[in-house]
């Protein structure tokens, strides 16, 4: 949590110099969404995770110092049908009993100009950690910020779908992930 303390100090320091300093750090789960599209026999099938948490610290004045952590409850998956939900909890897929949570921890926020950023970090699913980078678009409306983006995850990188499912001919390796995280600024951080 040290980085958060650092960030709050940084935010306070910024607040002293700028009346508009603001740190978005309260995820609004009801307004946020984590969806994905898998391809089965080339048929796009939509799914989503209904339960996830995020620790977020984003100061628009100092985007490069931003931090984000995302924890996803894998049991909250909706993979498109009841059969699929039961199946993806199994050992061959997420092995949800042994690995109930997927986690992303950011390592850098790189401004790409305008309201776009590249967020890099480490994604851990099923005990496997991979580097990951994704473009993120920021939309700021008063006390609320929306971070949106999409990226392609390769399921094989995390051993999601082993054994008879390992062949990409039926379920494609590439999974399109779309996220929308809405965060507000905590009263203490907002000035």
């Amino acid at each position, binding site marked *: 949590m040290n980085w958060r303390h650092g960030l709050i100090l940084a935010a306070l320091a910024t607040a002293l110099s700028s009346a508009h300093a603001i740190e978005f750090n309260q995820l609004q789960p009801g307004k946020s969404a984590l969806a994905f599209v898998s391809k089965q*026999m080339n048929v796009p099938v939509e799914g989503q995770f209904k339960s996830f948490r995020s620790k977020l610290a984003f100061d628009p004045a100092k985007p490069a110092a931003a931090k984000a952590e995302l924890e996803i409850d894998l049991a909250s998956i909706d993979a498109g049908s009841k059969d699929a939900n039961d199946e993806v909890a199994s050992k061959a897929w997420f092995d949800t009993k042994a690995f109930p949570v997927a986690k992303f921890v950011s390592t850098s926020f790189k401004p790409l100009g305008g309201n776009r950023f590249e967020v890099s970090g480490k994604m851990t699913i099923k005990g496997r950690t991979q580097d990951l980078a994704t473009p993120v678009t920021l939309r700021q409306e008063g006390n609320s910020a929306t971070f949106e983006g999409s990226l392609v995850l390769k399921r094989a990188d995390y051993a999601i779908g082993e054994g*008879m499912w390992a062949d990409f001919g*039926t379920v494609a390796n590439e999974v399109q992930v779309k996220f929308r995280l809405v965060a507000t600024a905590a009263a203490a951080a907002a000035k």
Partner: protein
Amino acid sequence: MSSLPSTPPASGTRYSGVAIGLHWLIAVAIAGSFSVGLYMADLPLSPQKLKLYSWHKWAGVTIFLVVMVRLGWRLSHRPPQLPAGMPAWQRKVAEATHVLLYVLMIVIPLSGWLMSSAKGFQTVWFGVLPLPDLLAKNEALGKLLEEVHELLNWSTAAVVVAHLGAALKHHFIDRDDVLTRMLPLLRSPTSGGTK
């Protein structure tokens, strides 16, 4: 119906090669997808099951298109007349059975397509051409359409049994040419009764 040629071919004439070809092509395709559909529905989820579902859906779309061609052919080419001695009620039943079969051949692929959409699995013909989803995902509606699709298929099975039974009855009991004029690989328009 006014566009039909006014005089049907005389009794004793065979169906055209196109009509015979379409009839048997569709018969084999329907028997195949019916069996696959019956088999795949209760399989545990596996890559094989996903493949079978896709193949079944591709077959359904293809059958629908071939049925459209066949319907066009049927409406522009009158089939040979039924045997002269056939009672009026039998003619009516035969006519109704054929109309019903056409209706089922059209409605069944449509019900499968709608059911797929309602269940949230788009139909992508041969994995290449996505068909639009006319229905939004809706679990209850998907379940209902699944039952409709199943019921229509069992109805088809029953009507096909009647259709087959009638053809065999014409061949072995009435000893007319109703069966043989639809059989492929026969060249002469002689009436059946002997092999």
